[in-house]
C-alpha cells in the first residue's frame, strides 16, 4: 500500500514563502513533478532537501550535466565489467543482473518508502532530455529488457525539478509539471535567510550591507548580478574582517566577494561613481583606459 506523505511546512534552515509551501503541497497531492525556476542562488536546489527533511523522507539527487542521457536515470548496463569478467573469469557472466545498475530515477522507483527525487538543473541536458523522461515519470515504471524485469514505483516519488535558464523546455513536458518561479527575495525575506546562516550578525552592519547589495543588483549591465550565496559570503567576510558599517556605503569593502567578473567590477565602480555615491570610490580596476 502507498503511504501518504505529510504536509510541507518549510524547515528551520530554509525560508520558504507561503505560496511556495502551498505549491509544494499541491504538487505532492496531485502527484505531479514540481518544476522550479529562479535566478541562481534563490534556493532551488536547497528546496528539495528542505522538503525531504520536513517530510522525513530520503532525498535522491540526480545532477544533470550536458552529457546526461535520460536512460542513465533508469539503469546502466555495465558492459565493460561484463567484458572484463568474460575475459578474466571470476563471476558468472550469464547472470546479467549483477551488471545492471539502477540510475537515480530507478533508485527512486525501487525504494520501499516514498522518496524525494531532485532532478537538478534539467536545462543543462540536451533539449530532448525532458521529453525522454516523460513516459517513465508518468507511468512510474520501466522495463529492463536485459533482465526481463520491470521496476515499478511502489510509492510515487516527490519529483522536484530545477531549471536555471531562460531557455524553454519542451511543451509536452511542461504540461505535466506544476510550475513555480522563486522570485528574488525582497529585503525582509533576505534578512530571514541571512539569519538562518548567520544568526549573530550586527544588525547595523547587516542593514548597510543589504542596502548596498540591492543597490548593486539594480545596476544596469552587470553580466552576473550578485546572488544570495555571494551576499551570505560577503556579510560573513565583513563581520570577520571587522568592517565598520559606515565604510560600506563609501568604499564597498571586499567587493570581490560579491562581484566575480572583471567586467562587472568595472561596471560597478563606474556606475556608482557616476551616481556620485563616492568621490572616495577607488579607480576602476580592470578597465583598459586610453
Amino acid at each position, binding site marked *: 500500500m502507498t503511504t501518504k506523505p505529510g504536509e510541507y511546512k518549510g524547515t528551520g534552515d530554509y525560508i520558504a514563502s*507561503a*505560496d*511556495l509551501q*502551498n505549491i509544494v503541497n*499541491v504538487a505532492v497531492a496531485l502527484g505531479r513533478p514540481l518544476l522550479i525556476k529562479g535566478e541562481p542562488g534563490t534556493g532551488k536546489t536547497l528546496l528539495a532537501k528542505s522538503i525531504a527533511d520536513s517530510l522525513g523522507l530520503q532525498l535522491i539527487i540526480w545532477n544533470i550535466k550536458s552529457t546526461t542521457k535520460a536512460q542513465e536515470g533508469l539503469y546502466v548496463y555495465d558492459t565493460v565489467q561484463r*567484458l572484463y569478467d568474460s575475459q578474466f573469469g571470476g563471476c558468472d557472466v550469464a547472470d546479467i543482473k549483477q551488471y545492471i545498475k539502477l540510475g537515480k530515477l530507478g533508485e527512486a522507483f525501487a525504494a520501499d518508502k516514498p522518496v524525494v527525487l531532485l532532478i537538478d538543473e534539467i536545462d543543462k541536458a540536451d533539449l530532448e532530455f525532458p521529453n525522454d523522461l516523460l513516459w517513465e515519470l508518468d507511468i512510474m515504471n520501466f522495463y529492463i529488457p536485459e533482465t526481463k524485469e520491470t521496476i515499478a514505483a511502489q510509492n510515487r516519488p516527490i519529483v522536484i525539478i530545477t531549471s536555471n535558464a531562460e531557455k524553454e523546455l519542451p511543451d509536452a513536458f511542461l*504540461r505535466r509539471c506544476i*510550475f513555480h518561479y522563486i522570485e528574488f527575495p525582497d529585503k525582509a525575506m533576505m534578512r530571514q535567510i541571512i539569519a538562518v546562516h548567520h544568526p549573530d550578525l550586527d544588525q547595523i552592519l547587516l542593514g548597510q550591507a543589504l542596502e548596498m547589495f540591492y543597490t548593486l543588483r539594480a545596476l544596469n549591465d552587470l553580466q552576473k548580478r550578485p546572488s544570495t550565496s555571494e551576499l551570505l559570503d560577503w556579510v560573513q567576510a565583513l563581520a570577520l574582517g571587522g568592517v565598520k558599517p559606515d565604510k560600506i556605503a563609501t568604499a564597498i569593502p571586499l567587493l570581490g566577494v560579491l562581484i566575480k567578473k572583471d567586467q562587472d567590477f568595472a561596471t560597478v565602480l563606474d556606475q556608482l561613481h557616476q551616481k556620485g555615491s563616492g568621490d572616495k570610490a577607488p579607480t576602476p580596476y580592470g*578597465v*583598459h583606459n586610453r
Partner: protein
Amino acid sequence: MFIDFYYRLKQEGVPVSLTEWMTLMDALARGFAFSSLSAFYFLARAILVKSETNFDRYDLVFSRYFKGIETPEDILAAALAWLKSEKPLPAAPPTPAALLAQYNVEELRKLLAERIEEQKKEAVKEKRGGPFWIGTGGTSPFGESGSGGGVRLGGESNSMSAVKVAAERRYLDLRDDSITGVRQFEMALRALRQLSTKNEAPMDELDLDGTIDATSRKAGMLNIVWKRPRRNRMKVILLMDTSGSMLKFAQISRRLFTAVNRTTHFKDLRFYYFYNCVYDRVYANANHTQPVNTEHLFKTLNPEYRLIITGDATMNEHELLRPGGTISWNENNELSGLDWLKRLAKMYPHAAWLNPVPAANWTHYETIPPIREVFPMFELTPAGLEKAIQKLKTR
C-alpha cells in the same frame, strides 16, 4: 462562463492546454484552492502557466476576469456550472474524447458539489456571514498563515487582493515579447558545442563500439578503446553593434548567448560592443563607458576564439573607408574601419557576421558589400544562424 478564463489566457498568448485546464478542475474538485481567491490565483498560475515570462499575461487576464468575482465559492460554482453544461469540453486538440477518457467528468462534478456543500456547512458551524472559505487549516494546503517573502496574499479581507495584486503587474519585466523564436535560435546555437570533441580533451571515455570492434578483431581478446568525451572547448567572442536599431538586436543576441551558455557551457564567452564599425577600441558595456583596446583583444584572446559579429553593416562610407572616419567625438582612428575589420578577420579565422537586414537588400547599401568581402555574412534569422554556425565549425 468559467471556461472563458481559459480562452482569455490563450488569447493573451499564454500557451495553456486543455490538459492543464482539466488538471486545475481536478485540483479544485479535491478542494485545494479555497482558503481565498488569492490561493486560487497561485494554484491556477502554478498549473496553467509554465514560464515566468507569461506571468504578466496571466495577471492581465486574471485582474480583468475576476474583477466581479469576490468570493471563492463563486469560482467553485462557476467550475461546477461549466462541468455541468452541455458541452463542457470545447472541441480543440487534443481531442475532447481523449480528454474525457482521461478525466472522469462525472466524478469531478460530484466532488465539486461536495466541496460546495462542505463550505456551506463550515460557514454555518463557524457562524460566519458573508464570504467564507474552507481550510484555514485542515486539509486544504492553502492555509492563511505562512511566513515571509513574495506577495503576501490571503487573510480575511483579502478576497479582492489577488485581483489587486494581479493588476499591479509585477512581472512586466519578465516578459519576453522582444524575442521571437528563441527556441529556434537555441537549437541553432546548440550546434556550436559539437566542436568540442575535436582536439585537446583527454581520452577518458569508453568507446563501446570501438571496443567491440577491436576486441572481435583480436579474436575475442579484450581490447578496450577510449575516446574523447563530449566536453565543450568552445570559446566565443560576441561583438555587437549598438547603433540605433541595432541596440535591440545586441540585447537579444546577448540574452540568447547567455542562455545558451548556461546549457552548453562554452569554455569562454566574451561580449563586446561597438558603434557602427570597429576601430581602435571596442567596449565592454553597451553604453560604451568602458573602452577596451582592440589590440588588447588580440593580445589576450587567441585565434581559437570564434568571432560572431552582429550588426547591420550600414553606415556612411567614410566611417568604413577613411582613417579618422569614426563618428565618435572622442576617438580618432588612424586605420580605417575596414582595415580594423580586416585585422579582426585575420586574427580570428573562425568568424561570421550576422545581419538583421534581409539578405535581399544587402546590395542596396554601399558598405555591406565591402564588409562581406571580409566576413562571411548571414541573415540574423534562425536559418541564417544555422548556416553561420556551420561556417564557424569549419575554417
